[in-house]
């Protein structure tokens, strides 16, 4: 029997008819659609329970309180700690993506020496040799930590130097340090009591200081309030975020902030709006008007506004002695709502400048901004968690990233009160990391390791019996029963807050009206951000939307 074409056709028709009543077409239709809902190249989150841990952000010295969602030993989400006494549940926008930073493609995962892979042993040997051959300069971007004390002792023992890189908030306090002798780390702005706040370009509502501290005050006392108890007057050449939301935005010519401050001082003195009579600035009101692009009337009106609702406080974007002198004139130094001294006086740190004359080696802590490039012939040991691009450093040493090491969190810059908190190592690490402090302790085992220092500091806090623990309910430190209990609380995210010091105790007189500084501006968090890279999600702000301009330095 020969099969014909006709048989084949009939067979095919039968097979097709039969196929319809089998699961084949229907199951394939169903399964392929299910496959498209779960196709395998898309990562799906692990099915693990989520646990909430409280801690502190250590990416920059502002120490905002964190509420971290943890799953399987990894951070899977970050939010602000609502009960935090200074950051009040706020974070900078980048903080919300910080848990992804540890996997940033630019993460430093191995020791690198002049562009080549190296090892910790070689780095140790190189640093030990260098420190035996000559002085070592250690630069810290986050003073006051237990790690900082390691650097200080190392520098002291090895005839080296310990220097601190100051952020813009600290730099704005520099003039008072030189006039009063109180170190900037012991000075703060008492914004809680300020009524009139005149900002010379400081991005007050855009990440300045501890973001939550300022924004909470502003939103409670000013934002959308008819009769604000805190009036922000923003002096700035362009309509910044702060200018947009300030009570008043006063446009000014680029770089004429100091001229305006001097002009205001002149009006205050000439019209006897303030009692003090320090040296009179050389600039006349008409000069100031010409420089700023304002009318003389406008300057006079602003001067009257400044004294109409005391206390008034002027804040500069950067180091600006004329703005500081204006505060002296307004009587805001050492007064409520002005510049205050914290209870505990720390000692002054040498400010780090780029020029380093004589050193055999420079060690830069991971808290120093990536862009800080010392001009020196010395061998540079650069600790960093992320590689921020081309660098002059000889050694790149992978430091712990976000929440990867135990560290303490001392008072944030420019806060009016002392605080102390601890950020334990919350997340797992997958490769070999060393912080600069561990590195130094590894070289000189007689140094006190940071863990020991943190324990000692807790013991001191317990002994002193002063201040309050916020954990999250407030507990007076006197009610804490043991160092162990205190430590437990701190490890769970509690914050110790010192007693507010009484106003006064800060005397400041001007011998001469300060000269105008070279203009320097500050951007918002982009400038105070200490990490060399941004979390990938930051692209939502400057690429996937038009909300912000892209920062100049960006590593995709």
């Amino acid at each position, binding site marked *: 029997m020969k099969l014909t074409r006709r048989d084949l056709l009939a067979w095919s028709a039968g097979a097709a008819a039969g196929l319809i009543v089998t699961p084949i077409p229907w199951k394939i239709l169903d399964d392929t659609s299910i496959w*498209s*809902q779960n196709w395998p*190249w*898309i*990562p*799906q*989150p692990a*099915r*693990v329970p*989520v646990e909430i841990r409280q801690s502190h952000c250590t990416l920059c010295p502002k120490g905002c309180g964190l509420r971290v*969602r943890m799953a399987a030993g*990894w951070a*899977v*989400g*970050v*939010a*602000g700690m609502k009960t935090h006494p200074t950051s009040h*549940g*706020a*974070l*900078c*926008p*980048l*903080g*919300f*993506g910080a*848990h*992804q930073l*540890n*996997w*940033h*493609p630019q993460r430093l995962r191995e020791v690198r020496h002049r562009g080549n892979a190296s090892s910790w042993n070689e780095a140790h040997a190189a640093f030990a040799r260098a420190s035996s051959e000559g002085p070592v300069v250690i630069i810290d971007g986050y003073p006051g930590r237990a790690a900082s004390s390691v650097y200080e002792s190392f520098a002291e023992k090895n005839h080296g130097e310990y220097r601190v890189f100051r952020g813009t908030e600290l730099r704005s306090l520099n003039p008072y340090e030189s006039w009063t002798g109180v170190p900037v780390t012991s000075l703060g702005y008492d914004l809680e009591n300020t009524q009139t706040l005149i900002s010379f370009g400081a991005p007050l*509502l855009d990440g300045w200081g501890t*973001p*939550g501290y300022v*924004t909470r005050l502003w*939103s409670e006392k000013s*934002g*959308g309030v*008819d009769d604000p108890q805190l009036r922000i007057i923003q002096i700035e050449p362009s*309509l910044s*975020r702060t200018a*947009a*939301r300030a009570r008043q*935005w006063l*446009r000014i010519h680029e770089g004429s902030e100091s001229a305006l401050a001097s002009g205001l001082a002149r009006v205050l003195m000439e019209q006897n709006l303030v009692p003090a009579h320090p040296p009179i600035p050389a600039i006349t009101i008409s000069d100031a008007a010409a420089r700023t692009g304002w009318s003389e009337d406008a300057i006079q009106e602003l001067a009257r506004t400044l004294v109409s609702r005391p206390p008034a406080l002027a804040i500069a974007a950067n180091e600006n002695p004329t703005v500081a002198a204006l505060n002296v004139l307004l009587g805001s130094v050492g007064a409520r709502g002005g510049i205050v001294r914290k209870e505990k006086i720390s000692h002054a740190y040498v400010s780090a400048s780029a020029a380093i004359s004589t050193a055999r080696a420079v060690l830069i802590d991971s808290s120093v901004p990536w862009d800080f490039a010392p001009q020196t012939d010395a061998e540079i040991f650069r600790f960093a968690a992320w590689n921020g691009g081309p660098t002059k450093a000889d050694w790149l040493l992978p430091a712990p990233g976000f929440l990867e090491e135990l560290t303490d969190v001392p008072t944030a810059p420019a806060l009016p009160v002392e605080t102390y908190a601890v950020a334990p190592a919350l997340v797992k690490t*997958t490769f070999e990391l060393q912080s600069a402090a561990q590195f130094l302790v590894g070289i000189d085992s007689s140094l006190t390791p940071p863990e020991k220092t943190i324990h000692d500091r807790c013991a001191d806090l317990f002994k002193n019996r002063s201040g309050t623990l916020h954990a999250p309910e407030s507990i007076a430190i006197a009610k804490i029963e043991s160092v162990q209990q205190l430590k437990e609380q701190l490890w769970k995210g509690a914050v110790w807050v010192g007693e507010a010091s009484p106003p006064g105790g800060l005397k400041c007189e001007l011998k001469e009206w300060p000269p105008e500084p070279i203009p320097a501006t500050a951007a918002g968090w982009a400038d105070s951000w200490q990490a060399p890279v941004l*979390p*990938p*999600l*930051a*692209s*939502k*702000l400057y*690429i*996937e*939307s*038009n*909300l912000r301009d892209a920062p100049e330095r960006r590593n*995709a």
Partner: protein
Amino acid sequence: MSARYGMVIDLDRCTGCGSCMIACASENNVPSLPQATARTGLTPLLVRKVSNGEDGERRRAAFIPIMCAHCEHDTPCVKVCPQQAVEVDKATGIVMQMPQRCLGCRYCMTACPYHARYFNWWDPAWPKGMEKSLNPGVAVRMRGVVEKCNLCHARLHAAEEKAAAAGKREIDPADYEPACAEACPTGAIRFGNLADPDDPVSKEARSPEAFRLLAELGTEPKLYYKSKEAWVRALAESNSARNSEVQHG
């Protein structure tokens, strides 16, 4: 007891910092792809910068967070979806987008007057290892589907589960707050149950200060705004984009 979740956003308190946008993306496992642009990126919550159109020192700016308004009546996206991938949840009033049902026809995107819906033009991807940082409560969407604000429904799930375990039928309102409201450093974004007359947010939504964008379309959005600044309110309530100077850059 059926809830009607909604928000009131105080524009006078919004500094345009963008914390809400990142918190939202992080909570909902929204990827940041290097290929994405302002027109193709995924921003279920988008803060837009607007100005009064003036120049020089008379220029003023404000920030308007835009997200799904969870329209209550004649919801434009719900009625156009050919395969029931969008629905108004009866119990919560949340307009729920189901990426697993969605076939990616994008009809709902053309229907939405707020442009609050986003298409996954690419498959999501994260740098190596970063998938460990994904939020366990939220399934990652594949390419070719539409997504939008689901009011952080994973948090609602967690709250419901917690209530069930404790033997309660109703969730504790303290357990359910979307990531944007939680993240807002100035408390500008406030979340609450509009069906509860005692809820402070519900009261605020009913106050004369509150207004909605494109309210005249009649879709009853549950996203309210408020502002004391006359120009902001005038701009937000005008239905016409007459002012070609308007900048959201």
